[in-house]
């Protein structure tokens, strides 16, 4: 008996480091390793999707057909959207979740570590398959990331089958990742941590994970129907056989609208962690923040048709979806005001994570406002499929989702690798990104309102100046992301040792852990003080 006790003690004293060699990354079930893999994958996809954006903006630099043929241009817009949504933003947030959720709720690892490994390793194969369509006869899918039927069925290139299979794999990966997070958060919180004591980042991911589990299967269903229409002579979306192409849009957006919240809610969580730290105040209105998250998630299921006001909906339908959409501005407003109230009268400092978080609050709100404009059904008839829509969703995705991920990486990097990043490089990265993205996307509002359609390789002369401005902004934004890569590598290789709590007044279980972080943490659960 005593011998056994001795062995166990011994076990605890020796820190089990990672396995040696590259196969460590293939077989790993450690949440930190898998988080790193997700983040590296996300960054890689961000650059691949960014290259496609470069092609798009280079073609649009001047009016007229310059560099690529229209078919390839369409493939670029389609693949840019798919890769950024499914390859960059979603895995980026799953990476943050893998790193942070066990650390923040005092769990030793994710609840289902083997599944965790599997859900990551599906992704490289899914995206290799998706990217391989670029080299296939007939080219990659060019029907837009929303792949409306019949463009994606009757008129699709042969590579569409690979696209469908890739979407299935991404869906399986996301569902497994989401299940893992739900099970972890429900069952592995440190003793004494109730649901309402969870950090906001954990809350935002719990809600996001439920959205994923609920709507990714619907995406799988709709691509399965496409597959059947293409290969098994069914007529889900073909009017000739009794189907309806508009049905595709309904099912797609039933998935698609919750999907856009999947891409933003975790960013809400990250910002809700960062703003209190650098304001040296508690998060304002924790409870209302949680309820607002739940309200946004529930409302996301009943607003899908605002993406398709122009398909010929009766006035009653338009009114319903218009009002339901505007209702979402209420819980979102609660969140924005709470963030502002958190900063109000705080002693603010502006380290890089805080800069990204403040830019998030301001620019996400800009994107939110253009969203309310688009929600107004009668004016949406004017804005539908113009660059105004492009401006809107890039304002919520770039300074929203992407800034959320980047802010989270800056904030937690000192804990993850035990080294500080170069603060002045970080600030340079922020300001160049900030200027670059506004230069890119703000003019798109104007050309959109003036009627420039999206997804076109050429445009009328009157849009030339704003488009040139947008293209220059895009090149600035894209290249300044290289600073980020350099900064992270520099921090890991030669950064200064980070303190255990690198940020003054940072709160949360993750900061109670030693720096550099051991490979295994919270093997005995922490004690939560009841307040």
């Amino acid at each position, binding site marked *: 008996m005593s011998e056994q006790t001795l062995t166990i003690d011994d076990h605890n004293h020796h820190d089990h480091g990672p396995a040696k060699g590259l196969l460590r990354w293939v077989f790993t079930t450690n949440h930190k390793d898998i988080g790193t893999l997700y983040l590296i994958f996300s960054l890689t996809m961000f650059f691949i999707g960014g290259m496609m954006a470069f092609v798009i903006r280079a073609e649009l630099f001047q009016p007229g057909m310059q560099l690529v043929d229209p078919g390839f241009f369409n493939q670029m817009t389609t693949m840019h959207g798919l890769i950024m949504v499914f390859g960059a933003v979603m895995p980026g947030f799953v990476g943050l979740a893998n790193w942070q959720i066990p650390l923040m709720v005092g769990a030793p690892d994710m609840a289902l570590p083997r599944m965790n490994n599997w859900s990551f390793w599906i992704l490289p194969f899914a995206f290799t398959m998706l990217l391989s369509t670029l080299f296939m006869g007939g080219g990659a899918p060019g029907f837009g990331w929303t792949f409306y039927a019949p463009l994606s069925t009757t008129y699709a290139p042969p590579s569409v089958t690979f696209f469908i299979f890739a979407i299935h794999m991404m869906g399986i990966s996301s569902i497994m990742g989401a299940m893992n997070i739900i099970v972890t958060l429900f069952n592995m919180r440190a003793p004494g941590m109730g649901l309402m004591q969870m950090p906001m980042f954990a809350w935002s991911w719990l809600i996001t994970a439920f959205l994923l589990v609920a709507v990714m299967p619907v995406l799988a269903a709709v691509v399965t129907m496409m597959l059947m229409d293409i290969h098994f002579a069914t007529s889900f979306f073909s009017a*000739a056989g009794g189907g309806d192409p508009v049905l595709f849009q309904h099912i797609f957006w039933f998935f698609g609208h919750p999907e856009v919240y999947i891409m933003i809610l975790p960013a809400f969580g990250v910002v809700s962690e960062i703003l209190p730290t650098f304001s040296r105040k508690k998060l304002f209105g924790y409870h209302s923040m949680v309820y607002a998250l739940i309200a946004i998630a529930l409302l996301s299921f009943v607003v899908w048709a605002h993406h398709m006001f122009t398909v010929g909906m009766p006035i009653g339908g338009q009114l319903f979806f218009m009002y339901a959409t505007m209702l979402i501005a209420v819980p979102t407003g609660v969140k924005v005001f709470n963030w502002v109230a958190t900063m109000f009268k705080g002693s603010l400092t502006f380290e890089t994570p805080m800069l990204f978080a403040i830019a998030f609050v301001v620019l996400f709100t800009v994107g939110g406002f253009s969203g309310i404009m688009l929600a107004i059904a009668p004016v949406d008839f004017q804005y539908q499929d113009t660059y105004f829509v492009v401006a809107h969703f890039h304002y919520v995705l770039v300074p929203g989702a992407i800034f959320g991920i980047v802010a989270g990486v800056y904030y937690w990097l000192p804990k993850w690798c035990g080294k500080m990043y170069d603060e002045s490089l970080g600030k340079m990265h922020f300001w160049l990104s900030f200027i670059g993205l506004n230069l890119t996307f703000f003019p798109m509002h104007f050309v959109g309102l003036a009627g420039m359609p999206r997804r076109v390789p050429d445009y009328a002369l009157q849009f030339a100046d704003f488009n040139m401005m947008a293209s220059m902004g895009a090149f600035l934004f894209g290249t300044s992301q290289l600073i980020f890569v350099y900064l992270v590598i520099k921090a890991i290789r030669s950064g200064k040792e980070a303190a255990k709590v690198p940020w003054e007044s940072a709160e949360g279980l993750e900061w109670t852990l030693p720096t550099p972080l051991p490979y295994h943490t919270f093997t005995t659960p922490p004690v939560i003080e009841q307040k």
Partner: protein
Amino acid sequence: MNLSTPKGLIILVVLMFGFGFALVPLYDVFCEITGLNGKTAGQYEGELTTKSNEKAREITMQFIVNKNDNLPWEFAPNQNQMTLALGEQKQTTYRVTNTYNTAAIAQAVPSVSPSAAAEYLHKIECFCFEQQPLDAGEHKDMPLVFFVDPELPESISKITLSYTLFDITNSTAPASDPHKVKKVGN
């Protein structure tokens, strides 16, 4: 269904996958109940409702056609427009010509504008209820017998009935599936 366990979550995933497919019939049911989407009902089997005592309101019916996939066939209404009283039974025909030198099967799909009028347009007989087999070069006058319900809202004075013609010779599955054919008639 315990949503804090993998088992419960897997059940939820499977249910939601099924729900995606369930949206297909649900969407049809929803359109049928609400009359949205300009979908007309199938064959009308009720009584002809005429208010013979007072002079019924007259409306205009317009007949237009579309050909899908740049189908080279000739397809046109024999009468472009007619005036009729509400409740009055009318007949008209559409002429189709198979310009291929092989036999083919056509299917017409109707749509009504304004969509609010769809539920008041009752078709007693319609070529759209059935697939139309045509020999090479064959002409056919396809009948449509209908009336407009006297309950038609005052605000509607003109109804446009559009047929889109599809060549479904190559899609074998709908031809062998009687349910699909019936659904087409909607």
